């Protein structure tokens, strides 16, 4: 009994930390990127180093079926619940993927967003391990998932992922 109690105690800091991590993500995700008009424009829902999407680019999700397809990819390891909680009637999900990367140490996140009429421009921040950094040698597939207001756009342009903007015509 005492041993079990000790085990619980020993496990606690980790549990706390993990919860802390979730909080961090949660806090980051709830902080919307503001447009000029100060109304929340888009928000980052989650990001992962293992999204299972092998090519760099955009995947646009308007239905729960499409979301399910993306969540059932092999090697996918995302915060599934946060994604399922998004009301797809209000917001659509944009998966911005870096494609397969050879090692750990890569991530992509939303830096800024701006509206130009019916065109939404997103700017992504990419982190890659600096040359000479020691990294894990498992293949990763980093992505960020951004919730955008549904049905407002004719085009979404994403900069920062490739040399040219990634363009999604809706």
């Amino acid at each position, binding site marked *: 009994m005492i041993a079990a109690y000790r085990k619980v105690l*020993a496990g606690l800091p980790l549990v*706390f930390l*993990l919860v802390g991590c979730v909080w*961090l*993500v949660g806090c980051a995700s709830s902080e919307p990127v503001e447009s000029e008009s100060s109304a929340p424009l888009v928000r980052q829902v989650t990001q992962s180093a293992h999204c299972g999407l092998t090519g760099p680019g955009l995947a646009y999700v308007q239905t729960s079926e499409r979301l399910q397809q993306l969540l059932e990819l092999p*090697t996918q390891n995302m915060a599934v619940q946060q994604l399922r909680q998004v009301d797809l*009637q209000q917001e659509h999900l944009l998966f911005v993927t870096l494609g397969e990367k050879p090692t*750990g140490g890569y991530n992509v996140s939303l830096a800024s967003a701006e509206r130009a009429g019916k065109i939404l421009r997103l700017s992504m921040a990419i982190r890659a391990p600096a040359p000479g950094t020691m*990294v*894990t040698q498992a293949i990763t597939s980093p992505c960020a998932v951004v919730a955008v207001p549904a049905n407002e756009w004719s085009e979404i342009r994403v900069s920062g992922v490739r040399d040219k903007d990634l363009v999604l015509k809706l």
Partner: protein
Amino acid sequence: MPVNIQAALYRFAVLAGLITALWGCGNSNGNEPEPAFVDIALSGAIDIETGTRVDADNAASLALNPRPSPGPQLLPQEFILAGYVSANSGTYSGLSDLDYSTDSVDAFSITIRQGQSVYLQPFSTSEGPSPLTLSLINKSGVVETVSTHNQPDQVRVSLPSTEPTGTYTLQVEAAGSDPMLYILSTSVTGSARATAFEWPDHDFVDSQAIVVLKSGANQAPMRSARSQAAMGPQKELAPGVWLMKAPLQAARSRQTQSKESTLQWIRTLEKRPDVASVTPNYTMRAMQTPLNEPLYNSPSVGQQWHYELLNAPIAWQIAPDGGSGVTLAVMDTGLFGAPGNWHSDLNANIIEGWDFVSEEFDNDGMPGPDSNPSDPGNAVGSSVYHGTHVAGTIAAAVNGAGGAGIAYKSSLLPVRVLGEGGTGSSADLLAALRWVAGPSGGEPLAEIVNLSLGGLPFLQSLQDAITYGADRGIVFVAAAGNSASAVASYPAAFDKVFAVSAVDGAGVLASYSNYGSWIDVAAPGGDASRDGNADGRSDLVSSSSAALVNGTVQETYIGLQGTSMAAPHVSAVFALMKNLNSALGYEQLNDMLMTGKLTCGSEICLKSTELGWGLLDAGKSALAAAAGTVSDFLTASPSIVSLSTEGELSAGVSLNVYGSAPSDIIIGSVSVVAPWLRLDSAPVSGDSGTDFAISVTLLPEALEAGISERTTIVIEYRSDELRRLEIPVIGQRVTDQQARDAGRHFVLLVDPEPVGDRYTTVAQTIAVAENGQYQFSFLPDDGEVPRMLNEVPPGDYILVAGTDLDNDGLICHAGEACAEYPVAGLREEITIRQGDPVTGVRMTTSYSRPSISAATPGVLPRPAFIGYRLIQQLPDTGGTAPKTIGAER
């Protein structure tokens, strides 16, 4: 000191938080223990009708995984199956976003008797009718074929009396352009419902029990004649704990009867006033190697093909101690869990480690080095617990759960050198390398160091630390890197480090793997873009990990790819070798490698830039390590045989002599003891040679339905001495009940009051058949916006469930499975109240629909019913009524 106080306060704060949280969950109404899930609004199970199967590649499953099934799907003799075929792909007209996929032919393998018929009932999708052909095929071609000719009528094929009873292929083909649903069935399906059964948790010894006497009970009478007669004490295992043997009259000859009579006897013992508890004397299953672990042959999580490719089962024969006594350091991201409470598959083999991650890269809440090498996961985004995966390949224990590592009894020293996002600094690695080399007057802390990391430039200080460690007897193994490049990557390319490149399931260099003259050896690292071993899955390396499930991080198993996954295979094989010969260091191992003693099976490989000295062969390596003590012995391929009534019924095993200079061996005997396994062909006593073949067949009628049994084929033979090879065989008579599957089910709560002629779907959840049943639950609406699909506000509802095999957004129309609570055709309302969960709801799903008869007067006709509509988008919960996305009647 302040750190300790901080830590103590911190732990207290966490504990207080936890207690508060538990308090919050508690219920004030006293003694009654609350169910664990107090926040359930409605839960229950859906049973599946006898013989029900589902086409593995229907439109709904194809939408999730676009590859149609490659081979024929095995069906029982009596079945009812719903399926989907379409010659084309497209979008349903009028239903944007609802696509159907191409799957022009479905093939099934069935055993059919002379004169037996199979019926095909076609159903149109919303695209309208399209013809189907049904063909019965044997090896020489089509036996019989029929077409539905665009008509909605049932067609059938029968086995002519000129053809023998046997296994035939049934083929359903889309002969027109539009998608179609169909139901395929044998004539007598549905006549009998199998009774429920339970999985036994553990086997136990017949006629024995372990009895704990009440404290204070007089022990002496245990030896009295009366107690002897009633309880049969055999042996006092501990003070007050007795092994009892049932009196003779309780024993029975037949096995199932004796099990039952033992349980009956145990129940009578429980009633005795002097007895505190009685348990059956459970038998421990003999589990010797990772072959016995569920993950080794798991169809869902992924088979550990990488162990077969590495020839590990033979190594486990030669090195049965599983690397016991050898310590491996895994310098990585740390391990999932906490000291003393690591991932349960690793915990038994983990020794105390260290965290070297400096502040810059640390994210474990205690910035900088400390004594806790726990992997906290990533602060940003989700993590795959890289170090846990690597450690599992090396040293996951054989414990009947999950998988096992190659050196499953070795000791693993977790050394954390990689922090956030799997990145770290060379300075931290240097500190770790110096630490593991041990104090100058003492021993190294590990004999083998695994480095599944890379990306560093050449650094003399690291080379010096490695040279120092190697001189002290440490063997270093490192991942070659994943840049698909020949540029040397460090630490792999350092002198005195084994640089490991990665291969796929076919033993071919993985598409991402580095190569070059600096590669020493290759091992399985997987390749998600390939299916090199043609097992129908992409080639990923399966091992222990953790994932975020329902808001908490839980231990799990996942497949990854990379040279990170290849290196631990080599480290673990070296551990098996060092267990056999502790004198092996870098120089000895390198000599063996270069002289072809560790790689390439019966061949000697030349050095290549891709695989170095070749693909590591664990069997050959173990043999080399045990040189002088191992003579010729037999090995089996496959090393494990798995037979089941819904898989392969027969299997062939080839036996080969393995040894440093293989010569003929003499067979003594080949035997099979289980009544459910028949030896079809085998070498006989006195046969000699180096290659033999055995074939076996499952006799399902001799197996208890639903229970997986294990036995061995025992081969006794003489090489230098009398030897014995045991090949594990797993046999299962899958019961229809377990195998029943009507496809992925949507469970809906719909408003009982139709709006016009439509029902409104309010809440929706998804269930997948497990052991022949679907489990579902809905959560109470927590008032938070947006309301999740599976949250239900208080009210009255109709509960329905069904498949969407054609992916048209409707369930319960013809050709698809449907369940209605409590009985299809006789819906009753279910009331959901705040704080009053409704649990244990049962209903049955079926492809058939109720008929109106004298026995079922309540069933009303539904002339224009086309199904219940699935929620495609979340309902608006801004205080207004849910939108009418209802079900048409």
